[in-house]
């Protein structure tokens, strides 16, 4: 078997659907999509769905996770084995566990790679905070996985493809959860994950006041400012949202410029996705230089202001 006979797709986030469809079409003969409403249904067909199923309008006090029984009924009605693909959002992770329990299926979250080996899904996901990747084989007839973004190519839309969705009747769960209210999140201005250029500060900067020289450099470059774990967690010089590394955030900028960061593996797992790594450190034996494309050995207090001036010119 080189493909699953059936792949089910559900996305709680519209923007993730094209990529999930790309994965589904690559992994399955027959792609069935669960949608909410007409426009998403039409889009699912344009993206290559062989069938679509509509959950209808979801009442405000109900959460999507409570549709697990509804999904399970639809999935089981179409065969005793299938792959279920969801995006790796918090909501879909809650849903994936519920589907796994009800379908007696193995579940892998945050998949970074999906392949079919000997008829079984093998999913790769990050373990030990990013130090390593675990390869996990799902051995059950149904397999459930939540997929990270950027793993598969998005399916392209074909406007000639159309179809109509089958409505699904809501199967009430045994223990419903009531949604009292829902509010858009106060957006945090820091989003290192999307920054093209990141200047990052380690404990080698010396003290909190010295961070201003790194700030001046990052402003001159148009970069976001990040930091290492000790700067955020031990010294509390910067917010947690800015800390790169194990249990912090993983970034993929075009440039990562590390200032006074020694370069422990636990930090580098967060920065290794950078296209180019540059580092300044006074210790020429610092491990950071093993990971750097360009390194400069010397005093930050002298180098950083000089670089800032040089870039302004």
């Amino acid at each position, binding site marked *: 078997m080189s493909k699953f006979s059936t792949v089910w797709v559900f996305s709680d986030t519209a923007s993730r659907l094209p990529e999930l469809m790309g994965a589904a079409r690559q992994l399955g003969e027959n792609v069935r999509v669960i949608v909410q409403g007409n426009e998403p249904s039409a889009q699912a067909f344009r993206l290559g769905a062989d069938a679509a199923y509509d959950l209808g309008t979801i009442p405000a006090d109900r959460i999507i996770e409570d549709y697990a029984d509804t999904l399970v009924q639809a999935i089981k009605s179409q065969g005793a084995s299938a792959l279920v693909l969801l995006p790796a*959002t918090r909501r879909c992770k809650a849903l994936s566990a519920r589907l796994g329990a009800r379908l007696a299926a193995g579940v892998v979250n945050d998949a970074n790679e999906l392949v079919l080996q000997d008829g079984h899904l093998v999913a790769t996901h990050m*373990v030990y905070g990013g130090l390593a990747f675990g390869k996990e084989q799902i051995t059950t007839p149904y397999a459930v996985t939540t997929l990270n973004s950027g793993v598969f190519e998005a399916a392209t839309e074909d406007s000639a493809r159309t179809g109509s969705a089958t409505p699904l009747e809501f199967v009430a769960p045994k223990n419903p959860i009531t949604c009292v209210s829902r509010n858009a999140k106060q957006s945090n201005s820091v989003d290192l994950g999307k920054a093209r*250029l990141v200047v990052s500060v380690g404990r080698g900067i010396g003290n909190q006041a010295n961070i201003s020289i790194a700030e001046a450099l990052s402003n001159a470059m148009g970069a976001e400012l990040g930091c290492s774990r000790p700067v955020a967690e031990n010294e509390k010089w910067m917010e947690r949202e800015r800390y790169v590394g194990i249990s912090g955030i993983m970034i993929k900028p*075009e440039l990562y*410029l590390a200032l006074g960061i020694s370069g422990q593996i636990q930090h580098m797992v967060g920065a290794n996705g950078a296209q180019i790594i540059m580092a300044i450190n006074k210790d020429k034996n610092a491990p950071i230089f093993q990971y750097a494309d360009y390194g400069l*050995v010397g005093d930050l207090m002298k180098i950083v202001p000089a670089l800032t001036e040089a870039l302004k010119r």
Partner: protein
Amino acid sequence: MKIIACYKLIPEEQDITVNGDGTLNLSKTDAKISQFDLNAIEAACALKQQNSDIHIVAMSTGGEALANPKGRKDVLSRGPDELIVVSEPGLENALPHQTAATLAAAAQKSGFDLILCGDGSADLYAQQVGLLLGEALGVSAINGVSRIINLSDTQIQVERTLEDEVETLTLNLPAVVAVSTDINAPQIPSMKAILGAAKKPVQAWQSADLGLGNVSSYTTLLSVLAPQQKARARVIIEGDGEDQIAEFAEHLRKVIG
């Protein structure tokens, strides 16, 4: 009211090194309580501060590391009134479905109104055990809880933080709630709490005490390997004189574009 706070012992990630073949060397690591589970324990203690009728049971399943008296004292010094461990050789490699089945049997035996878990363990980070535990027990379960708004005898109201929105949810008890790291900042136990921990009751069970047969896993972990290191140019300039800084600035300018 009885609250179970679940935790897992995991290897201290700061001590893990990578072998030449990409496998991880865990031989120099100490066992520690998974960071996210400290949030769950702290959340249980915060509820007890508001309501002294609460009895907190810390609960874990795993291998022989759970027999270590120091580790038992560590968890009890953080506030729970009692500890229940289900441990035997082999359980340290349990995958989520198996862990949830064991915890469910232990929770059923001990009784509970509310179970608190971390969103995932800092080692495998499967992010399923709390949710699967709820399924195995036939009670409501939810993840990503960033605040407990209210706890009554029959319901718990929580705030749940998602990627782009925040929900307020009501769950009927009994329930399982997996908390995110935003919920609190776990405290470091005081000397008095550490000394008091030794006097708290501990129950050690095995699968057989729970009538649990062999729970097979739905997945097989094939390998755990560090990612291949990206090849880097490693152009290292030594010295912070004007010329060296200018050379470095030139590289930086090219990269910025």
